[in-house]
């Protein structure tokens, strides 16, 4: 990477004092020496004593309530081992991690909400393999093989990432009171869903709520949840894998028909969705549910991951999980791929192989560690030994069940694509929502990005 070798930056102080032209400068130098000397000596001492036997530096994105939950996870670890965890949270993890790693100031461990950044570090040789750090046999007995396989992105038999917590995507949320008052039943098959969709639409209310704005670097990602789920369920896991790997063209019939299926959800000119394209594009994803809980409801269903419930309850505090909102999994489109689900999770990598880092990463794979956050709500455990009874409410228990029972679990496709491909896909989906008839040119553009994005990464 960097030009850090090419360029050295002159001393930021003292240069002025060392200008030879000026002649005898000892006087002035002497005035500055105590100050600068003190700093340098102090730093030198600090360097030698900083090999603190018991600490591990961690960077992750969790802040606010999430940070409190993560701290609760760490508390027993710190108590048991005496190791201090120096945790830094940042919402701008891409920037902070890339800079720190390139400058040689990486944390010991980092967790990322999508593995692609950590995979890049693995490709650059910046992260250490975990095969010796964790107990592989314990890991493979407590974690499904799919999650372990995900941690070996280079396919060189080395484990570079482990997963601690997860979320299930492609859950269709609805208000059961709305459904029962209209005698709608939960669709079991894709055809049921399509039938329900047109029944609701003919009653004069749009069936769906969709909101895709998020700001920040990931604007548009919620739209991709629909597409990924459809590709997996309609075209199957091998097409999905090839698509993620850049070997399946966007213009291919499988991917194109997935977009078209998404088009049938949106309806002609996005007429199946509350507020049409303007509202889809302008609404923050966290606010997606608010119209569904209005009286009378302005839409009946929405597709979001398991974490959306906290947004429901903070916007409408009176809502109760189970009675006011619940979900059903998106029905299988092609029954030969039944039970397929898109999942996402928090992945960990180790930058410095220290005994403390090893201990912590081992701890994070255990049911004990994962259970703490599970009980506090908002996350699902990757470790199979976490009891389903530990989930704080019936809905999270239900989504944990889906996670455990899923026959075909596939990791979030766009999160595993190279960044340029991912951003282009999000952009393309926003364009598609804006004007569905642009599909062919959108897909052609995505093919063009595909041809360069994978080569660069």
């Amino acid at each position: 990477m960097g030009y850090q070798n090419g360029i050295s930056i002159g001393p930021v102080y003292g240069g002025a004092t060392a200008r030879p032209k000026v002649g005898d400068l000892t006087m002035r130098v002497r005035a500055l020496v105590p100050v600068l000397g003190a700093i340098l000596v102090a730093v030198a001492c600090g360097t030698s004593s900083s090999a603190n036997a018991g600490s591990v530096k961690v960077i992750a994105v969790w802040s606010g309530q999430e940070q409190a939950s993560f701290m609760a996870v760490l508390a027993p670890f710190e108590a048991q081992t005496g190791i201090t965890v120096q945790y830094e949270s940042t919402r701008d993890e891409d920037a902070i991690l890339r800079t720190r790693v390139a400058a040689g100031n990486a944390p010991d461990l980092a967790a990322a909400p999508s593995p692609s950044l950590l995979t890049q570090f693995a490709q650059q040789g910046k992260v250490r393999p975990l095969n010796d750090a964790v107990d592989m046999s314990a890991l493979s007995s407590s974690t499904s093989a799919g999650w372990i396989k995900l941690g070996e992105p280079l396919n060189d038999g080395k484990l570079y990432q482990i997963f601690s917590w997860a979320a299930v995507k492609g859950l269709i949320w609805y208000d059961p009171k709305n459904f029962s008052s209209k005698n709608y039943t939960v669709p079991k098959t894709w055809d049921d869903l399509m039938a329900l969709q047109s029944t609701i639409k003919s009653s004069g209310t749009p069936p769906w709520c969709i909101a895709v704005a998020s700001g920040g670097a990931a604007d548009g990602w919620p739209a991709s949840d629909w597409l990924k789920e459809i590709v997996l369920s309609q075209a199957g896991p091998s097409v999905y894998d090839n698509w993620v790997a850049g070997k399946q063209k966007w213009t291919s019939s499988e991917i194109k028909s997935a977009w078209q299926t998404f088009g049938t959800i949106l309806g002609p000119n996005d007429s199946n969705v509350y507020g049409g394209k303007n509202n889809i594009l302008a609404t923050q994803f966290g606010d997606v549910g608010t119209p569904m809980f209005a009286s009378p409801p302005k839409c009946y269903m929405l597709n979001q991951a398991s974490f959306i419930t906290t947004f429901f309850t903070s916007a409408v505090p009176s809502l109760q999980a189970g009675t006011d909102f619940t979900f059903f999994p998106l029905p299988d489109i092609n029954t030969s791929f039944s039970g397929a689900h898109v999942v996402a999770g928090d992945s960990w990598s180790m930058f410095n192989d220290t005994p403390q880092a090893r201990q912590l990463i081992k701890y994070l794979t255990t049911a004990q560690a994962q259970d703490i956050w599970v009980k506090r709500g908002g996350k699902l455990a990757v470790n199979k030994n976490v009891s389903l009874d530990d989930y704080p409410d019936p809905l999270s228990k239900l989504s944990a069940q889906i996670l455990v029972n899923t026959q075909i679990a596939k990791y979030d496709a766009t999160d595993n694509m190279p960044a340029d491909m991912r951003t282009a896909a999000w952009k393309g989906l926003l364009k598609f929502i804006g004007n569905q008839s642009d599909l062919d040119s959108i897909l052609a553009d995505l093919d063009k990005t595909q041809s360069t994005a994978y080569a660069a990464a």
Partner: protein
Amino acid sequence: MTVAAAAQPSAVAARFSPGWISQLLQRYILHIVVIGLTVGWTLPTIGLLVSSFRPFALTKTSGWWTVLTPLQFTFQNYTDVLAQSNLGQAFFNSFMVSIPATVIPVTIGAFAAYAFAWMKFPARNWIFLALVGLLAVPLQLTFIPVLSFYVNQLHWTTSNLEATGIPGLPWVPLWLAHAGYGLPFSIYLLANFFRALPSDLFESAEIDGAGTLTVFFRIILPLSVPAIASLVIFQFLWVWNDLLVALIYVGGAPEVAPLTVNLADLTTSLGQGSNLLTSAAFFSMVVPLIVFLSLQRYFVRGILAGSVKG
């Protein structure tokens, strides 16, 4: 004299005649325009202020201007911020960052601006232009080379500097970085003001035998107080509101992280808790506003009065 223009004496017209009305309008039109523009400009801030006192659920369903019907008012956002963030430490850290990171570039910038404005040296104009051009360097591209120099050559990492036990030391890398980033603007702005000072001031001072230091401290600085005050304001609030540079060079550990880092951590990674940011904005605004208000008295006319020959 500030109202001289508005209150210029004019012939008195008969009450309610067209002339009287137009005079009345002329007299008040300035105030109407000034107050109108100001109110319009302040509207978004008022919206934020009102929203910070409203229950979160209501801000999602009705506009802030409906706050009075029905009157629903809560301090929740403020008490939550006080409870969830470590404001005492964060304010202290922010002062420890912002004050030196303002003093250093303003002072060093003033030295340099004086030289650029009133001394002759080779390549002066070209160096000056290069400085202005460097204003355009995106800071993100400087992070990796600077940080790796800190880490690999100087061993200036936050934990090393903390381990020395010398208070204040962990922020030194950040001070110098902010100084480096702030200097081009400091020099550019101050040199412009210094250049505009009348040259006979210097000539007469030199005839009196005053040295360079005397001219700088006794003539240049006092006469440029408005420019220096505005520079101090901007440098201070850029540093005060900075998030990224602080995260890069000192990191987000609570004992060193400034207020911005602390407040950014109020929301979750998915953006939950953004309602807290409404009240947090006002916590972090207080100090820059105090700085502005206290320096405003230096924006006065007449500093140069009597120094210019007619």
